[in-house]
Structure formats: C-alpha cells, structure tokens
C-alpha cells in the first residue's frame, strides 16, 4: 500500500533541500540561471518582494502562466506563493503540480485571522515565523517546513537575524524548562504543548527551518547558516544585483561552506553592487510585511 501526502513525505521533501539556496524568480530565464547556479529550488513569483513593495496595492498569487513557464523550464522543485488564508489559491497551485506552497506574508493576506489548514493538502507548505510560538502554531496547522520571516524585499539582514536568534534561543530555553514551566510557556506563547514537548525532548524543531527576508550577500547567507538555519531563501537579493549569475553562484557556495571565511572572502570579490537595501526605521508599520500574520 502506498500513501501520498504523509508528514514523512512532506517534511522529507524539505530535508532534501537542506544546505541549499531557494531563489525567487519571475520567469523561465531567471529560473534557468538559478538552476545553473546550483539553487535547490526556485520560488515562482510575479514580482520579487522589493518590486511588490515598490508597486504597492494588493499582491496576489502569480499568474499561473508564469508558474507553469518556470515549471517547464527547470528540473529542480518549483515553489509558489499563496496569500495567507487563501485556500483556493493554494488549491489552484496544488492542482498545477507545484512542489511546495509558501503561505506567505509577502503577499497581501486574504484572511487576517486564520491560516490555511495545511493538513488537508497533499502538497507540502512552508510558512514564516518570528519566534518559537509562531513556528509551532504553523507546524500545528500542518506546515512541513518553516522559514524565519525577516523583512522581505529590504536587503537588510537585521530582521532575519533577530527572528533566527529568537527561535534558536527559545528552543534552548524550553530544553531547560520543567514540565510545569513548559505549560506556562505554551500558554504565554500560544503554542501547542505537545509539539513543544517534542521539541524540548529532541532539542530541535521537527521540521526544517530556513532563513529568509533580507539576505543580500554571500556573507549574509553564511551568517544565517551559522545562526542555525538549515538553508536560505534569497528573494530580491539575486536578480536585483548587478550580476545575478555570479551573485547566485557565490551565495550557493557560501551557504555550503559557511565556515570557510577565506572562501567567502574570495566569493565576495568583484560581485558588483548588491541591492540597495532599506533601513528598518524608515519603514512605516504598514510597510512591515512580517507583522501581517501571527
């Protein structure tokens, strides 16, 4: 008897992506550059996050033509974004055969209270988190992979660092808690107790956790790996740089060899200008994508 869509199959898919870089692409040509550079997957989008920021208005699931074009162009897995809580966008992506759905705060949320019940789907989901409570709520809803949110489309690593540190620190914290203390942690962080207990016992999350939102250089990617990321998502950073091909390759290598500083130094030479980036204090509360979901 064979079974599809099991936790093992959905989480296992993310395990195979570890140590890799998932790149945002908006067409077949970019997808091929990403694959050639060694990306483990591509995220098919209508616009990269920095362009979504610039355009304003409501950001929705990409035109399926773009996603299909990308799926036909590469043999690596293709991910695509659905709006938070938008069950139908997610079903459409599943029907198209997309390999992973990102229920993403980069798009404008369709539901400001509920996330999708991801256990209903055969296709696996990745979701964003800023702390352990948020991470565990998403796992509780059936997310098979996590990514720390960072602040997408800014080219500024500070929020990605904050979120990864927070998640890792809270994992270390609960490992040391007694069971009565764990129940209060569960209450205060709005996190399912049983999942926290599992994380406490194993000392790690039950799913893969990538870093995202602001990675703009090879050193940024290596930094996130050192802070405990299983891999990295690079959105605007690659195709908003001067030389995407070279940039993409350098970020892939820095992610693999994140402790080889001599190599990272070499990789960082003559890369051209990275994306310009945005200082956090210049963002209004409405500009902060990370706060669009809890």
């Amino acid at each position, binding site marked *: *008897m*064979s*079974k*599809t*869509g*099991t936790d*093992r*199959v*959905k989480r*296992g*898919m993310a*395990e*195979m*992506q*570890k*140590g*890799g870089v998932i790149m945002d692409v908006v067409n077949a040509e970019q997808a091929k550059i990403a*694959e*050639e*550079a*060694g*990306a*483990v*997957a591509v995220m098919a989008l209508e616009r990269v996050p920095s362009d979504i920021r610039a355009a304003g208005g409501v950001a929705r699931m990409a035109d399926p033509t773009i996603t299909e074009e990308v799926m036909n162009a590469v*043999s*690596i*897995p293709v991910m695509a974004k659905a709006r938070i809580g938008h069950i139908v966008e997610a079903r459409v992506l*599943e029907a198209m*055969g997309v*390999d*992973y759905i990102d229920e993403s705060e980069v798009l404008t949320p369709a539901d400001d209270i509920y996330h999708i019940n991801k256990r209903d789907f*055969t*296709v*696996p989901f990745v979701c964003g988190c800023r702390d352990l409570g948020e991470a565990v709520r998403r796992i509780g809803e059936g997310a098979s992979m996590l990514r720390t949110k960072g602040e997408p489309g800014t080219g500024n690593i500070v929020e990605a660092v904050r979120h990864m540190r927070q998640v890792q620190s809270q994992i270390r914290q609960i490992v040391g808690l007694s069971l009565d203390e764990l129940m209060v942690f569960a209450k205060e962080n709005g996190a399912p107790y049983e999942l926290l207990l599992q994380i406490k016992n194993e000392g790690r999350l039950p799913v893969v956790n990538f870093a995202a939102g602001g990675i703009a250089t090879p050193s940024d990617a290596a930094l996130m790996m050192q802070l405990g990321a299983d891999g990295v998502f690079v959105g605007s950073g690659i195709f908003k740089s001067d030389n995407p091909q070279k940039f993409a390759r350098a970020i*892939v*290598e820095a992610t*693999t*060899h994140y402790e080889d500083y001599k190599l990272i130094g070499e990789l960082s030479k003559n890369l051209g200008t990275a994306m310009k980036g945005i200082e956090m204090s210049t963002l209004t509360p409405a500009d902060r994508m990370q706060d669009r979901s809890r």
Partner: protein
Amino acid sequence: MTKIGILALQGAVREHAFSVETSGAEAVIVKRVEQLEDIDGLILPGGESTTMRRLIDRYDFLEPLKAFGQSGKPIFGTCAGLILLAKEIDGQDHAHLQLMDIKVARNAFGRQRDSFEADIHLNGIGEEFNAVFIRAPYILEVGNGVEILASYKDKIVAAQQDHYLTSAFHPELTDDHRLTEHFVKMVKDAKKELASS
C-alpha cells in the same frame, strides 16, 4: 573504527550520519576532497542532484570521487546519490560519476504531490521495509553484474553492483536502519579485504 563519510555539499546529511552511527560506524561529514583519504566508505545523500553536481565541479570532486570508488571502497547513493552513481541518465547527454552500470530516469515517479511511502521487500536484507520516495528517480535498466535488490510496481528502486549500493528511496528518513547496516557491513568487509591485499 570504521569511518563512513557523507558527502555534505547539500542535502539530508544529518539523518544519514545518525543512521551510520546507529549502525555501528563513525560518521564523517565530508566537505573537502582531502577528507576522502580518511574514510572507508562514502554515502552520497539525497538532495538536488543538479546542485550537488555544480558543487562537485566547483571543488574538483569528480575525479577523486571516481577514484575513491575504483579503489574498491564502497559507495552508497540514495535518491540524488543514485543519479550521481548512474552510468546513464534518461534524456541527458551527460551522466555524473558513472560508477554503476545502470540507466536511470530522474523524478520518474512524478512531482512532489506524487511522492509516497510504501512497504517494499529488500532481497537478502528484509521484508516490510518502509521506503520513502520523494520526487524519486527509478532505474530503467541494469547491466550484467548488477543485482536488483527491490522493485516497486515493476520499477527497480534498489540495486547493488559489487561494492556499490543504491536506492531510489530514503532509508535515512525512517528508524529502520537495515539498509544502512547492510552498507556498514559492506564497508567493514571491504576494509578487511583492502587491508589484506
């Protein structure tokens, strides 16, 4: 102690390392060519074969990996590792290490929504082995000297050729370590043989 390396350019490295340690050998995370000298056997893990090949080329791993296999030291390739080991890849002009006389098809069971787990029979290793297939390849043809260890719905999903072992599924994702134990034994036997020759 017998040392088994896991090629750690990308993919599910930690799970293999755990399975190797559970099966009574020391696991070594291999990121550099010179580390191949210190190990008795090597696992090519699951991941993305295109990514691994790109990094293999970038760090001049291709010839040393071939030489490692040709010296008689065992190699076990799972999923992407199976693709790396194959002599021929369906629909592609170029294969990778070409150490095993098999022809393989990539993503042959379909996209992620078609990924599945199923109980299979592993010849000479055991019954009811829970095999996890993720965007998995399968083997289309095998040459002389390749022993078929398992088939699923008439597709070949595990095989052995002398000191090369391969599976289209992921034994490292379950708690069933029988296939890794089989590989550890292959490595221990080869180590003895290489020491006495």
